[in-house]
């Protein structure tokens, strides 16, 4: 049984840091077209902000903000976004994952369609990586119990 951490410094600093970390993750994702970065890195940083929330406050509060059911939805949604972006050009006489053909349905030329096609699939990668990291973390920490089973534990720590 672990005593609940009540550290005002950690809480205050992480309250300031979490929005900055999330902004930085979107910077890494958006700027990945120009500098090192992209979906995997941005997703990991975004997941780190949620994990910092769970470590600095408690896992119950973090699970209230990011429910496991929603994490499961996002895990599938990211891969779906990637594969769907790949399938759409098939119906526009292109090959699988040939984003240049997206220019037929978007108001872009084919070069910029490839540019934004890459942005869309990187977003899908980011969503999946973020949701998987958060989901694995919260499942390991809570030993797979979900929110309803934890309601009778009022101190916010998960012990048997």
């Amino acid at each position, binding site marked *: 049984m672990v005593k609940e951490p009540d550290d005002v410094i950690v809480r205050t600093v992480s309250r300031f840091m979490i929005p900055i970390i999330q902004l930085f993750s979107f910077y890494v994702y958006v700027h990945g077209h120009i500098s090192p970065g992209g979906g995997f890195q941005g997703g990991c940083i975004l997941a780190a902000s949620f994990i910092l929330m769970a470590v600095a406050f408690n896992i119950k509060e973090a699970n209230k903000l990011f429910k496991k059911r929603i994490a499961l939805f996002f895990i599938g949604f990211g891969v779906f976004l990637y594969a769907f972006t790949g399938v759409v050009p098939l119906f526009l006489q292109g090959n699988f*994952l040939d984003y240049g053909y997206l220019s037929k349905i978007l108001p872009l030329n084919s070069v910029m369609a490839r540019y934004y096609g890459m942005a869309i699939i990187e977003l899908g990668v980011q969503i999946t990586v973020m949701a998987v990291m958060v989901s694995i973390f919260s499942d390991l920490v809570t030993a797979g119990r979900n929110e309803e089973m934890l309601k009778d534990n009022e101190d916010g720590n998960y012990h048997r």
Partner: protein
Amino acid sequence: MITIFGTLLVVSAVDFKPWGDPLQPASVHVSPRYIERTLEETGVPNVVTSVLADYRGYDTLFETSVIFTAGIVVIILLRRQTDGKGTG
């Protein structure tokens, strides 16, 4: 046994081409095409991003599928339903 294989690896590593040689086979096949035409074909200044997400899109798609599978397997193994009987 380990010593023999280690010696073989070290001996064979001596014959490698110089690191970063622009004329070695790995650098003259498709790499120059990507480096020269990435900007005009995809509009992305970063060659790494264009190769990762566009030219080698299959690779990244199934990389993402591996992450997806890892998450799903952890959920199947660990997550439990409310009654504590069935496994999620």
